């Protein structure tokens, strides 16, 4: 499964600049030192607590489709702190366009990552960070 997943995504390992005391909770689940780029069609957004989930259909080079889950902040963070609504995050959801999503991957190798950036076909993007001092950064 892990190998198959690796084939599905374009890996781009980068140094993710974060403060030293950051991300205790995120690092329990995700690797902040790695960024994976996933290209896929957004199939659904679960606007739920305690974390929003966005699901993508990703097609590998053999044409096989599988699901990749992207996790992000709770709804009240998105709405209150960033001004981000489900509609804005979904973009032109109905057009089923291929989006480019950057995540910190799950440490257990599952097709799951923590959202850092999502880029839409017209070039606009949403880039989120767990800044120092936030609960996620402890």
């Amino acid at each position: 499964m892990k190998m198959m997943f690796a084939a599905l995504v374009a890996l781009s390992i980068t140094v993710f600049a974060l403060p030293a005391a950051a991300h205790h909770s995120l690092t329990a689940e995700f690797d902040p030192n790695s960024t994976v780029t996933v290209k896929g069609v957004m199939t659904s957004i679960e606007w739920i607590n305690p974390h929003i989930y966005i699901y993508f259909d990703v097609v590998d080079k053999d044409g096989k489709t599988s699901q990749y889950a992207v996790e992000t902040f709770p709804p009240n963070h998105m709405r209150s702190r960033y001004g981000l609504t489900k509609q804005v995050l979904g973009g032109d959801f109905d057009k089923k366009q291929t989006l480019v999503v950057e995540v910190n991957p799950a440490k257990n190798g599952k097709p799951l990552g923590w959202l850092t950036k999502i880029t839409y076909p017209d070039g606009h993007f949403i880039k989120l960070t767990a800044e120092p001092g936030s609960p996620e950064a402890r």
Partner: protein
Amino acid sequence: MRSRVTTVAIITAGIVCLSLALVGGQAGAQGKQDGARAATASAATPRLADGHPDLNGQWHHRIGPPVPQLKPGQSYDAAIAKPIGIAQFNPGKPAYKPEYVAKVKDLDERQVQVDPAWYCQPPGVPRVGPPQKIVQTAKELVFLYDDLNGNFFRVVRMNAAHRTDIEASAHGDSVGRWDGDTLVVDVTNLDETTWLSDNGLFHSDKTHVVERLRREGDTLHYDVTVEDPVVFSEPWKQRSRDLKLMKDYEIEEAPYCSERDASHLQDLSHHGNLR
């Protein structure tokens, strides 16, 4: 838009008085808050027809007031936008009887596995925090909460005796009385399924909570004392909080809570989940 800008200006001007410990400065903000209480009465305290202070309104939001919404197609970079902080408040810690100290430590260390609030259970009183919205009549006050774990309410019946015909619950049974201009809320009938805060602060089913709410201008002073004769060695007086009236904000329904991370966690490290 203009009113929102005005609201931001008001909040900014009142930040010294704000009890909510902002990002990265819980201890510092707490110190400022304690020293600033005497200086909060900038406006007259409105009153209802019965002469008691008018506590109606939106008083607290864990994060907020919200920033303006993005438009579809608009780019956003959190590193540039510098989003507003999260109002996490650290209530302090109670003194447990010696025989329970080890249990608290164990629960604290295993919080990601055993804290009921991490698994979408009701936070309970007092962990749910101060009321986010108050609806007040002469006979009762209703406290409303848009919480990470769901939508919760409490009905505070004025000058009434505690009910004896209901099961114990996470948020218990609340009755209120006026002590001068201070609303005193007495809470009993709390079950032991909740924690009092983060860090393993369990309690018994004999917990008794007293909240004191006093409006001064557009500030609501909120104090909590917790008694638990079974597990505490003395009553726990939480750190005080001062809440600002949020005039241009309305409470919203919380999306449902479904915890899905537990199976992916590789260690027990965690962040605070304070309210």
